[in-house]
């Protein structure tokens, strides 16, 4: 088996206010997996994803992405590692007052010469690529409108196009459909599935609904109180495991 694209060893995170978000989490992700992370709110899903690109600095443990140690990386190395990891957010995190195109181009900031980018100048090939990525998510015609004018589903597609500008080997998706109408969830997740299958991008995606996790994940990781309570294939989550993850009184609902 080839080297895993992501390796996490004994990762722990305790926030300054004493909250223990992750305790001793270890796992590996192989190239091309669609790993879905499930768990209740506050189980550590967001913290885990943010430790991978060090938006959150871990308290202990190590993270390797593509063989490079993220936890020990210098500032410049960290920037270079980060640009290979796309990220999609629950609240989309677009600059709402800027144009859609500018938001997408911002995904390329790790590559372009800094002085040029400060003047909002991007080389023509980069702009072309941004338009291609917008076309891929089906909103090229909105390129020159403001991001705030888009619906939630459209904003999330801009978020995906922005991540694509990084030519990522991994995409971290933090509850990408939790702010959306359930009917839109599939359209967003299908884009991620398409990137996973056609482009071979490894996806780590946290989701609320088990039904969505089963439908899209090639592998499911469940967190409870910052620790892994399940790691396996979607089909292996039975009633007992479900209750172990979500608590005794939980009932599964379907999102169609």
């Amino acid at each position: 088996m080839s080297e895993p694209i992501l390796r996490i060893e004994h990762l722990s995170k305790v926030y300054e206010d004493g909250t223990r978000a992750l305790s001793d989490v270890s796992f590996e992700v192989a190239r091309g997996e669609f790993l879905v992370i499930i768990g209740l709110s506050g189980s550590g899903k967001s913290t885990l994803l943010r430790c991978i690109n060090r938006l959150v600095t871990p308290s202990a443990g190590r993270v390797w992405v593509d063989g490079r140690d993220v936890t020990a990386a210098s500032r410049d190395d960290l920037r270079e590692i980060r640009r290979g990891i796309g990220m999609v957010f629950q609240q989309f995190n677009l600059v709402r007052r800027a144009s859609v195109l500018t938001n997408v181009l911002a995904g390329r900031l790790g590559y372009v010469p800094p002085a040029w980018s400060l003047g909002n100048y991007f080389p023509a090939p980069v702009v072309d690529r941004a338009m291609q990525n917008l076309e891929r998510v089906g909103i090229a015609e909105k390129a020159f409108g403001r991001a705030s004018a888009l619906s939630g589903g459209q904003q999330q597609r801009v978020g995906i196009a922005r991540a694509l500008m990084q030519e990522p080997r991994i995409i971290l998706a933090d509850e990408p459909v939790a702010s959306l109408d359930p009917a839109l969830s599939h359209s967003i997740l299908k884009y991620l599935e398409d990137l996973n299958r056609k482009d071979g991008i490894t996806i780590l995606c946290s989701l609320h609904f088990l039904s969505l996790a089963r439908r899209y994940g090639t592998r499911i990781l469940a967190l409870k109180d910052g620790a892994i309570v399940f790691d396996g294939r979607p089909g292996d989550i039975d009633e007992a495991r479900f209750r172990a993850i979500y608590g005794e009184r939980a009932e599964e609902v379907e999102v169609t």
Partner: protein
Amino acid sequence: MRPAPWYRSWRAYAGLVLAVAVYAYGWHVTQIRLGELWRGAPLIRPFVSALAHPDVVTREPAVQRASGAFYYGGEQPPPAVPGPGPALRLSRASGAAGARAAVHGDGFTPGRAGTLWWENQIGQRQPLAAFRTDAQGRFDATITAPDVQGTRNQIIAEVTTGYGPLRPSRTLVIVLDRMVETVFLALMGTTMGVIFAVPLSFLGARNLTGHLPAGGAVYALTRTVFNLARSIEALVLAIIFTVWVGLGPFAGVLALGVHSIASLGKLYSEAIESIDTGPIEAIMATGASTLQVIRYAVVPQIVPQFIAFTIYRWDINVRFSTVIGFVGGGGIGFVLQQYINLLQWPQAATALWMIALVVAALDYASAVVRERLV
């Protein structure tokens, strides 16, 4: 259980009595005498009617003029040199006060009313008689030489033949000039405010100072300075600055500037505190440098708000600079106060209309611009 109706509660009556006492005392200390509104109405009536007739335009009269000398004290004037146009012929050219003389005028426009003036040696005039020219443009009148100082007098006949085109009055020119000064006074004061408020506002934003060593102290100090400076009215600042740099618009600029630093600083700080951290996180995740994060995630969020607040402040400053002249801080307030003090109501009305129009226009323009930005 249903609560008792209000009129069953003694608290309601106590509150009512307290309110009556407070307002009665307030009525007393502020010396409200509604009768004065009625009694003083005649005093303010000329002003109200002047509002309908501001001194805005004027027409220059076209005047035909002819004169002849009349000397006192035995001195004889030099003989008149006949020229083209209207002329005066006097039955005598010298004498003493009380002497009578016949005046004959010739060469005027026929059928017009005119006035005969007596002008003394230092150019002071008094009317002598009114006349009307006949079909040949002549008139005859008899005058009595008045008792005046000096010896070399002139008798002047003036006939108004018509009026020239409408042109802006002197008052309008002065008021316009001062209004331009007022608008620029506000602009310079606002600019001064912006230049200092932008860097200071970063120190007054809790979300930024939180990461600095002693950030809490910096934040508290900045905010305290803002609040103190804001609590001093700009009019008071203007008085202080006129003492410092002398009367004139510069004192006004400084007063508005200091006040604007404080108000803008507070507004800017709050704008910075309210930025969404999501885009910052997202841009950081792309591998962008700190400068790029500021350029792409922070600046787009705060600049439109900064501009909107600045226009809003300029708007307030224009309004304020119209009164800063009352204390010698320059601008239109200075002439407005003069007109009011001299009871020159039509001129005061011109200044007031000018203020109303310019302030309303800027108010509207700034609202439109702000709407587009935010």
